[in-house]
């Protein structure tokens, strides 16, 4: 069986589910961020797969590039916020940080 659209889509679906699993089960904020990156990557696989097999052509590549740009911005801001939280609370467990303001 030749590799077709469905193969890539299934890989992307499993990757997405694993990302969701990571986001739900972990306390550590950075681990949540990692789960988020997995989800974004699975979306990217879909974009590129459709650009080859779905006739989306180069526009799928562009969408993936924009996703990568946003992921970079998001990671930078998220890590800055996590650092700030760490300075205030001395830990970064998302369960224990319930207050908006001290």
């Amino acid at each position, binding site marked *: 069986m030749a*590799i077709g659209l469905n193969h890539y*889509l299934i890989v992307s*679906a499993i990757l997405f589910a694993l990302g969701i*699993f990571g986001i739900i089960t972990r306390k*550590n904020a*950075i681990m949540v961020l990692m789960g988020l990156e997995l989800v974004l990557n699975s979306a990217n696989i879909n974009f590129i797969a459709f650009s080859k097999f*779905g006739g989306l052509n*180069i526009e799928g590549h562009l969408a993936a590039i924009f996703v990568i740009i946003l992921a970079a911005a998001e*990671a930078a801001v998220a890590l800055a916020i996590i650092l700030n939280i760490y300075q205030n609370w001395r830990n*970064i467990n998302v369960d224990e940080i319930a207050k908006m303001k001290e």
Partner: protein
Amino acid sequence: MDLFEIIFYFFAAIVLVSALVVVLSKNIMYSAFSLLFTFFGVAGLFVLLNADFVGITQIMVYVGGILVLIIFGVMITTKVTGVDIKEGISGKLQYAGAGIITLLTAIFLSLMFINGKWITGSSTDVHATIHQIGTLLMTKYILAFEAAAILLLIAFIGAALIGRRKA
């Protein structure tokens, strides 16, 4: 089974196994380093799909940028020997619930993807994507490109500001 299929299954296995390690590992550093292989495998899948520019950008931004940031973040904020996993009865319940949700999501998405009536069509040109990407970025997507550039600038300035602020 030709070479192309072998390479596809190889990269798919790398992606899925390393993603499993990312979400299941008890050591946060293992998770972070395992993420390297996930990103690398995804880049390999991109290259298999004739998206060489996106594949290399993936390595460039994810491995060279985001992953380094994440590892620095881990080192600064965590006692790197272990990671807190939800424990006790509620933790177990949560684990089971998350597992079920994950399984359901995966099955649902897979079924949807397999049974979906996708518009299929072959891609027109498989070589030299960079010229087309460049042209499109400068014409049709110029607004989105500029917006993304400004967003990045604002995000980095904001990140620097937040990160520097003393508690």
